[in-house]
């Protein structure tokens, strides 16, 4: 019984490393960003674009003292190519302990609404804020 009681904390300690690292948050962010970007362009009246065609890359990290784990001080800088033009944007992220995150675009680059220039239909901007989750299982 004593051995079992000793084994439990050891087992917990061995599995204690957080899965919320920049290396795992980055790809999760890129996938959701490209999907929401394609949706944004559709709302702007463009022909459908494949998220993969954007060749997006993201660099994510925390601005505070910690380098990984949950927190509200995450940022992701994403670079992508669309219409033969390279662009970059920065998003602030809140990463929660359950592996889900919420990204906020800066108002200067991501207004609350987007308007189709032909139909003048206004829609909520899919990139103003969006959520994603990453696999935190062992």
């Amino acid at each position, binding site marked *: 019984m004593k051995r079992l009681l000793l084994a439990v904390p050891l087992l*917990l*300690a061995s*599995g*204690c*490393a*957080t*899965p919320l690292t920049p290396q795992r948050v980055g790809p999760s962010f890129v*996938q*959701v*960003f*490209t*999907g*929401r970007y*394609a*949706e944004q362009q559709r709302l702007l009246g463009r022909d459908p674009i494949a*998220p993969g065609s954007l060749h997006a890359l993201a660099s994510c990290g925390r601005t505070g003292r910690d380098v990984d*784990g*949950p927190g509200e001080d995450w940022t992701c800088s994403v670079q992508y190519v669309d219409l033969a033009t390279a662009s970059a944007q920065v998003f602030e992220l809140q990463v929660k*302990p*359950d*592996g*889900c995150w*919420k990204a906020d675009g800066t108002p200067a680059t991501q207004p609350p609404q987007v308007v189709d220039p032909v139909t003048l239909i206004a829609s*909520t901007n*899919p990139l103003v*804020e*969006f*959520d*994603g*989750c990453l*696999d*935190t*299982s*062992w």
Partner: protein
Amino acid sequence: MKVLRWELVRLRAQPRIRAAFALSLLGPPLFALVLGAQTGLPKDTLFGRYVKESGFALPLLVLGFAGTWVLPLLTSVVAGDVFATEDGHGTWQSLLTRSRTRAEVFAGKVMAAALTSVALLSVTTLSSLVAGLALAGDRPLPGLSGTPLGLGRATALVVASWASELPPLLGFAALAVLLSIWTRSSLAGVGGPLLLGLVMQLLALLGTLGSAVNVLLTTPFAAWHGLVRADPYFGPLWQGALVSLAWAVGCLVPARRLLLTRDIT
């Protein structure tokens, strides 16, 4: 089987079980009515920002909340009292003088609690899906991988997400059964799992456990996050099912032993 049938009839007649079913059935539509009347959206919760865009967002918003607080409550209300009520009413002796062994009584009562918990989960699933569709229609749902999910896929994933709550729900039912037998108190049987669930939620929220958070019984309630996407991942689902099974066995084995060896004369 006789014990199971009798226990199901008894559970159905209890006012608090009826209240639990009423909450499951009416809670989501009432929540939809409140959301429909508001201009703001619960944007801090997953799918909260989409509740007026797609009818599939509401059942997932409800699921996020229910998995944390409501489902452990509902299952504890059912399972936390099935054994302690015999102690409370002093009816063990008359129950065991019928031609049923203690092992049969244990199995029947546990199965009745599990089936009632499954019924509550099914009612909540259906109710929240119908309420969501009534609120926002069947437009595509923006999935957690960024791309929209159409009608058929979104419906299947919402149902699968709710079904993924079953393993931890039954784990909590087993925990409630153990506390109900061990303490002989309905209050401990119902309130104990809730309290333990709250402690587990707080431990998870602290974020200091890292991956060790996966051994908590509350973590599998979030396994559905991996399903609502164009490219589902199933790691949390399988892991959650194994963890829940371990909790269920770890609770039911000592609970059964306690009941079989107890002096009830």
